Every structure is written in structure tokens, then in C-alpha cells.
């Protein structure tokens, strides 16, 4: 095949670029430890969340010295916990903590996103999304559903409060 010299140079440069991208992302995943959402959260029966050990009584739970688990049910059109403007608890965790979210849906597909952080996942009925983040500084974040879930989707929001450690009053029953 007849390939022009410039073409060959371009082809080579393109391949180098591609390999560079793959290497960067691989480093980001393995080296810097940006974890992906994957299949580790397991499955649930979306029709029997009330009997589930995690989702029967969703909320914040302390599991280690600075480690917390937050179990959240997304439903059209609120997060439980999270949607304080709908009368549910906000999600409240102390600063300097490692927090693992377990999120599932009781009805349709939702999104679970905390703008300003790495927290962004799809929430699929039958599946549990598991993701871990570090909250270092006290701050109040917004929480929102970023996948269309029905006529009131734009009102599906909530609050995540990262409070100073000395003001934190324990896990559940905040």
C-alpha cells in the first residue's frame, strides 16, 4: 500500500497519543487509586427493600474509627436519607472521614451526584452502587439526581453536610 511520508508520521503520532491516553487513565486508576463504580455492591430485591439489612433502615452508620457507611434509597423523587426539603434527614458525616455510599433504587433508574466531589453514579433498581470518598473539610454540599426519572425529576435533590468532627452527634438518628 502506498502511504505518503507525512501520512506515516501522522499515523505514528496518533498511535503514540492513544497509548499515552490509555497509560494516563491506567495510572489514574491503579496509581492514584481513583476507584470505579463496579459490580462490588451486589444486588438487592427492589420490591423487598424494607427487609434488607442495609436498606430496611437506611442512614449513616459508623463502621470504623473514621469510617462511615451511608445507605441511601433513591425513589421518585427523593433520597432517603438526603432530601431534607421533603422531610427526610440530610446526610450528615464528620470531616476527616472515609465514607462509603451504598445506593439503590426502589423504582426507576436515578442518578446520585454531589457536585464539587467525585461522587457521581447511576442508581439502578436491583443493583447497589458502592462508592467511597474522603471528606476532609467541613462543608455543605448539594445532592442531586442527574438521570431523568419522571415528571418531577428536577425537584429530586438533597443535602450532604460534612460537619466539624467535634459537632458530629453520631451516626443514625441525627
Amino acid at each position, binding site marked *: *500500500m502506498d502511504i505518503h511520508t507525512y501520512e506515516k508520521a501522522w499515523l505514528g503520532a496518533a498511535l503514540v497519543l*492513544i497509548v499515552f*491516553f*490509555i497509560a494516563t487513565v491506567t495510572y489514574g486508576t491503579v496509581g492514584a487509586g481513583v476507584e470505579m463504580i463496579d459490580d462490588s455492591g451486589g444486588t438487592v430485591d427492589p420490591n423487598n427493600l424494607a427487609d434488607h439489612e442495609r436498606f430496611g433502615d437506611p442512614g449513616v452508620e459508623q463502621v470504623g474509627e473514621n469510617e462511615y457507611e451511608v445507605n441511601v434509597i433513591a425513589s421518585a423523587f427523593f433520597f432517603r436519607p438526603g432530601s431534607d426539603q421533603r422531610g427526610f434527614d440530610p446526610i450528615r458525616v464528620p470531616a476527616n472521614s472515609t465514607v462509603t455510599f451504598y445506593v439503590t433504587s426502589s423504582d426507576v433508574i436515578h442518578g446520585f451526584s454531589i*457536585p464539587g466531589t467525585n461522587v457521581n453514579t447511576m442508581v*439502578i433498581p436491583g*443493583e447497589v452502587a458502592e462508592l467511597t470518598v474522603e471528606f476532609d473539610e467541613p462543608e455543605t454540599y448539594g445532592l442531586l439526581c442527574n438521570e431523568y426519572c419522571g*415528571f418531577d425529576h428536577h425537584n429530586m435533590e438533597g443535602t450532604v453536610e460534612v460537619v466539624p468532627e467535634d459537632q458530629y452527634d453520631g451516626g443514625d438518628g441525627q
Partner: protein
Amino acid sequence: MTSYIDQFPEEARLVKAAMVSAFLALAVGATFGLLQVLHRTGMVRVLSSADYYTALTAHGVLLALTFTIFFLVALFTWGITTSLDRNLPSMRFAWGWYGTMVVGALMAVVAIFAGFLTEPPTLLGEELSASVLFTFYAPLQAHPLFYLGLAIFVIGTWIAGYDWFRTYWAWKRDNPDERTPLPAFMALTTMLFWWLSSAGVAIAIVVFLLPWSLGIVDSVNPLLTRTLFWFFGHAVVYFWLMPAYMLWYILLPKLSGGKLFSDPLARVVFVLFLLLSTPTGIHHQYMDPGIAEGFKFIVMVNTMFLLLPSLLTAFTVVASMEHGARQRGGTGKLRWLGKLPWRDPVFTGMALSGLLFAAAGFSGMINAGMNINYLVHNTFWIVGHFHLTVGTAVALTFMAGSYWFIPQVTGKPLWNRTAGLVQVLLWFLGMVFMSNAMHRAGLLGVPRRTAEPQYENFAFEGAIGSVGELDAQVVLGGTLLAISTIIFLVTIVMTMLGDRGEVPDNSYAGTLSGPEHSPAILDNLKLWTAIALVLIVLAYSLPLAAIVQRGGLFGPGIDGITRVLPPIDTIGGLVEWVVGR
């Protein structure tokens, strides 16, 4: 002087009909686009926020599926007949697939538009509605008419593909020793990956969603139907893009006054798309639970390699334009640019599309990185990205191309070149404003697919610019785009109403390095299809098996949610709806 209508009068009517169908979809879809821009920013809210999602469904289905694919079948029919210099075997058959597509599209559109009524009519015992967006993720459930319409539309395209293939087979029998002409090669390879990939969405619809919406099965596995959608959903973006590439490869060099740089390389590019466009779909599911990280990684590697054919295209297209400009007396390192036919809206529109497509390449690389994707997934950034790709690289190339094609299929000269030129410039400008602001808003976390991205408890904060400034740019851009669409439609209508006259010859660019320089194996479509199949099996069999193992083929008892629109008494209904579940 022979135009397409002189050579193929019957086919010209079909091509014209398909293009007009595309333009009707564009007209309605763009209207919703403007409404969306005004609604999201809160400038003017014509619709209720619940109806916003019905409008967005219409926008997606009409533009991303109807407009693009009707234009594609028109273009490929032209490309096959012109490059093989051969009629379609039977015009009745051809009108048959066109009619199938029209019927399917109308069914889906009727189901969507019924969602605007306060009391939609009932059909098959269910209220008509389909406010499920063009991705129709279960358990959101549309009326069966919607799924059926989409399936029929896709089947229409399959038959069209068969029609082009049998034209090609007949040509091959008469010309056993000739290389397949480039436009035909492009149409055929594109059709091959379309068959492979749209099988996924066809299975999602026919095996799972349609029976479920009809009550024949009572549950679906939402992750499975979603994965089957994206099996098709990434390849469909190349189904939009390949006709634009075809125009860049075979028309743009001619308009520049020169020849295509390399025919063999063009073939390599299309073969790469055939191989890689389907086994990449899971990159739309980087943020999905239930899919192992390893599968996501494999797909990311495939996706990155899919950059290659687009980078090669950038090279060939620019090199061909430069060659053309130098033929016209252009000199210097960059001064040749001035010799290009910038007053020709066909050329300028396509060149500007290419420019914005290059910009889209950058945001695409961000999207493709599986862990950088956290930052942008389901934000307005994504909407900014694909309005550069499908909304400009494809749509503007089609509009500019229409200024060449409508004269070809009517025998009537373009009504007004200046109008065409203003139109393509306005689209370019409008998209620069709208898409740039969308990208930036996305980085602040502003979500897509949301009627009111204004929240009670928090506000998006930006280091660069405020949400108000970004909103203003989105509205400015959207308005320019709407004006551009109107000028386009007027120019087309006036051209079609005009008198017959002098129009350009029906021909496409020659090549500097012809097919004789490429190995014959490039034309071996059976071989490439077989490899494409193997790659699909490698990329998808394990993830699909895992998904079925986790959730079952039909899922854990998942009912459809059809009440995606509020009952008439919104507040009371909302309470009842929430409490009732």
C-alpha cells in the same frame, strides 16, 4: 451537463422525499431545542416542567434518529447509484422501505406528542404517552406504540441496506474485476456495522420492552435493556457520522478544487469503524453499578483506538483541501487557506463543521477516560459535546450538503447563496456560544436532562463566570441556531419552488492515490464483518452473561412506571403517587 435528476429521475424523487422528511424532523426538533434552552435557563417557560421531558423526548427522537437517518438513506441511495452508475433494482421496493421508515417514525412521534395532552387518547387499553427520552431506559415505560414505531423504523433501514447491497451484488456480477467505488464502499461498510449494532436495540425492544409494555411479561432487567441499548447507542453515533465523513471525503476535495489525497486510507478508516464502533458501547456505562471494572477498562482501550480513524480523517481532509487550494494557485504555509472557496456555503459549512468536530475531539477524549468521566457524566458538558458532534459535525454538514443535493435532485439552482452562507455562519457561531457554555456549566456540576437546574438548597459556584453568564450564552447560542434553522428551511423551500436551470454536474472527487494502490483485501467485506463479530463477542459476551446472572433475563419483578407525567391535579396527584408506592 448532467445532474442527478437527469441520470436517475426515479431515484431522485426518492432521495428528495427522504431529504424532505429529514428537514421536517429538523424543523420540529429545532423548535423544541429553542424551547428547552429558554426553559432550562428560566427565561421563558412555555411548557410546564413536566411537559419539558416530553419535548426533550421529541427533540432527541426527531433530531438524533429521524433527521439524521432519513438524510443518511437519501445520501447512501445517491452514493450507491451514482458511484456504481446503476439503478436500484426496483423502485417499488425502494419506496417500500422508505414508507416503512415513515410509518415507524410517525407511530413513535404520535405516541410522544400524545404526552402533551392533558387527557391522552387510549389505545390498546393504555393511555398514549412516551415521555421516556430517546434512550427509553426501563423501568420507565412508554406506550407499546412507541416501541413498535421505533422497531419498524429500524427495520425500514435494514431493508434499505439490503436494497443497496443487492444493487452492489448485481454490479459486481457485471464488473467482477473492478474495485468497489469509494462511495459505495463507504455506504456498505456503514450498513454492516449498523446491522450488527442495531440488532442490540432490536432485541431490547422486541424481546423485552414491547412484551413488557403489552403485559405479556411482567418484568424486565433494567441493566440488561440498558446495556443492549448502548450496544447500539455508540455505534449509532457513527451511523450519524459516516454520511458526514462520506461528504468530507468525496465532496469537500472537489469543492476545494482538487482531489482526495488517498483512497486507500479512506477505506482503512471505514474498515476501522466497522470493526470498532460496536465493541465500545459500554463506555456510556462507566458509572453503572453491576458491571465489573475490567470490562469497562477493555472498552476504554477500544474507545481510545477509535480515535485513530478520526485522526486519520482529519489529516486526509485537510491535506485534500490544501491540494485543492494549491491547484487554484494557493501558496505559502498557510496562505493557501485564502484560496479556498469560502463564498460557497456548501464548502464553508462543511469546513466549519470539521473545525468544530476537532474541538469535539478534545471533549470526547475527556469523556472516554473512564475515571475522568466522574467529572462530566450526565452533566451539561455531555450535551455541549454532542451538539458539536451530531449537532454540528453531522447536522451542519448535512445542511451544507443539502445546498448541493437539493439542486441535484430537483434540477433547480440554489435560491440564494448568500442566505446559505449566512446560515452556516450563524450555526457555527450559535454553536460556539451554546456548546462552550454547556461545557463550562457541566464542569460546575450542572446536570443535563433537567427542566429546572435551579435547586432549593444549593447553587452551582464557578471560579470562572457565573451561572447567569453561562445561561445568557446558552440562550444567545440557541437563538442564533434557531434563526439559522429558519434561514435553512426558507432557502430549501425557495429552491424547491424555483424554476429549473443550470445546476452543477453530478460527480464527486477523484483521488490522487487511487484504489489500485491499496491491497484488494480491504474490499473483502466478509472478512471484516467476521472480525467485527469476533470483537463484539469478546467485548460483550462476558458482561452480558454477568448481567443476566446477577439480575436474571427478566429481572427481579420490575413493573413499568408509565405515570411519568403528573396526573391533572399535580399536587394531590403527586402526594398520592408518592405515597401509593
